[in-house]
């Protein structure tokens, strides 16, 4: 069923009774051309672009739980393309352009909201770094504006500009950045992929990767063996676990990142604001809740929940920047497991095992990448060569020294 103004009005008159399920809840077949492990945003987008761009539709997405149960439904929904390094710039800009056309492409309301992303700076050094980053973006045709203090005041007048430790001196603004309704992205891609013939198989955990003569031949799952010529891993925080099923060790650690939402209030902030010096960022959802977060907890974790020290740190950062938050009550908080890579950048590449493909290392920033990751991973799976926009995301770069370290932190995953 196509969604349109007419279908919405028609359903309203009929008491919303005739909506159909958005995609087929498929049972696994015995064999596929390609199996994608992980029904998060990336896995579903990969399946969609495999079908749409490459005509490969004999594909299954295997999800151990339900679609949207992983990080795609746990993130703080921020999208932006304000990166500074050559390997990242074209990739994230492709993602931004895909976001801009996504809703028309998949006929689904993903609530893409280009409300701007504003990164604050507090010192000369930070200003220089942002000026450089903004210039790198503009040289690549991406919008970036370096604001002074008055420019920031015009957007977020309510923050504490004269904080003694971190006075606000200005910010780097990307107006095309913003937020996208995270679970609608998962549902929209699932529906669009399913419409093109992809099987979306939920409650199907992959438990083994079967190989013959060094080549992948399929996956063992909780619902039996599934034969496949190509197996593509897209499991975010579980990446090392899946890789170990094929005896691979990866430059990845799994860490927990927490997020928070306050009670709903009237419109309070109409942009996304980040306070890097205090490890706090915030936006407001359409329901009215302030959605905010900070750093990862900083230790290996598969627990999907974090600890109070980090919660305290995030709240302190929020209060230092925006004392007006103090009266708000925290409604919920939760955690998700991040695939933190050793240089803070992702991997979209083949593996040393024939037929096994890897999309991983997204750290805390893979939601914004969802469309481009799907697009480029599908290209890799279909053609066995990297897409030019993801050409730097090679697994071998750690051995050759071609790291993409935006933050300059070195091989210390909990600092990226």
């Amino acid at each position, binding site marked *: 069923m196509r969604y349109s103004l007419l279908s919405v009005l028609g359903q309203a008159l009929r008491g919303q009774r005739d909506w159909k399920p958005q995609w087929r809840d498929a049972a696994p077949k015995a064999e596929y051309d390609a199996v994608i492990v992980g029904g998060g945003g990336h896995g579903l987008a990969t399946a969609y672009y495999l079908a749409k761009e490459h005509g490969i539709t004999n594909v299954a997405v295997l999800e151990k739980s339900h679609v949207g149960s992983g990080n795609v439904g746990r993130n703080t929904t921020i999208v932006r393309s304000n990166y500074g390094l050559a390997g990242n710039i074209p990739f994230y800009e492709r993602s931004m352009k895909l976001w801009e056309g996504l809703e028309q492409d998949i006929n689904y309301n993903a609530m893409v909201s280009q409300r701007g992303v504003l990164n604050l700076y507090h010192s000369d050094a930070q200003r220089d770094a942002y000026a450089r980053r903004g210039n790198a973006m503009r040289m690549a045709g991406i919008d970036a504006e370096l604001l002074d203090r008055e420019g920031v005041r015009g957007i977020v007048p309510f923050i504490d500009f004269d904080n003694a430790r971190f006075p606000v001196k200005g910010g780097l603004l990307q107006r095309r950045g913003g937020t996208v309704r995270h679970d609608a992205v998962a549902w929209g891609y699932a529906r669009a992929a399913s419409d093109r013939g992809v099987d979306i198989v939920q409650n199907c955990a992959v438990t083994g990767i079967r190989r013959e003569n060094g080549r992948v031949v399929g996956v063992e799952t909780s619902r039996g063996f599934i034969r496949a010529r190509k197996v593509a891993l897209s499991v975010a925080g579980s990446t090392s676990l899946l890789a170990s099923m094929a005896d691979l060790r990866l*430059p990845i650690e799994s860490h927990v990142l927490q997020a928070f939402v306050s009670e709903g209030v009237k419109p309070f902030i109409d942009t996304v604001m980040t306070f890097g010096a205090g490890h706090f960022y915030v936006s407001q959802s359409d329901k009215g809740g302030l959605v905010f977060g900070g750093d990862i907890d900083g230790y290996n974790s598969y627990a999907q929940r974090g600890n109070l020290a980090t919660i305290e740190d995030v709240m302190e950062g929020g209060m230092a920047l925006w004392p007006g938050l103090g009266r708000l009550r925290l409604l919920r908080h939760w955690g998700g497991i991040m695939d933190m890579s050793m240089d803070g950048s992702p991997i979209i590449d083949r593996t040393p095992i024939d037929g096994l493909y890897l999309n991983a290392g997204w750290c805390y920033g893979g939601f914004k990448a969802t469309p481009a990751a799907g697009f480029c991973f599908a290209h890799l799976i279909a053609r066995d060569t990297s897409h030019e926009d993801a050409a730097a995301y090679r697994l071998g770069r750690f051995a050759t020294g071609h790291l993409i370290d935006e933050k300059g932190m070195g091989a*210390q995953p909990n600092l990226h």
Partner: protein
Amino acid sequence: MRIRCPHCGPRDNGEFSYLGDAAPIRPDGMEAQPVAMHDYVYLRDNPAGPHRELWYHGAGCRSWLVVDRDTRTHEITGVSSARDVALSRRTGEVA
């Protein structure tokens, strides 16, 4: 999460900072091959389950600790001083 520091007793995890997996051992300087160095610097087992790891008690006694912790539950089953662990590794004893 609380870590029972051998010197300071049980302390809030906010007092500690984390380095990572305690298993990798730095290959010997001049002898080290690039492949071994790559493994040491970049590759990790990253298990879901028991994990031996290095923590630093920065807001306390400032010693390095080796902590046995389950990455699925955050349950801590053992803490020892990293110095003792390194010394016993040198003498071949188990810590």
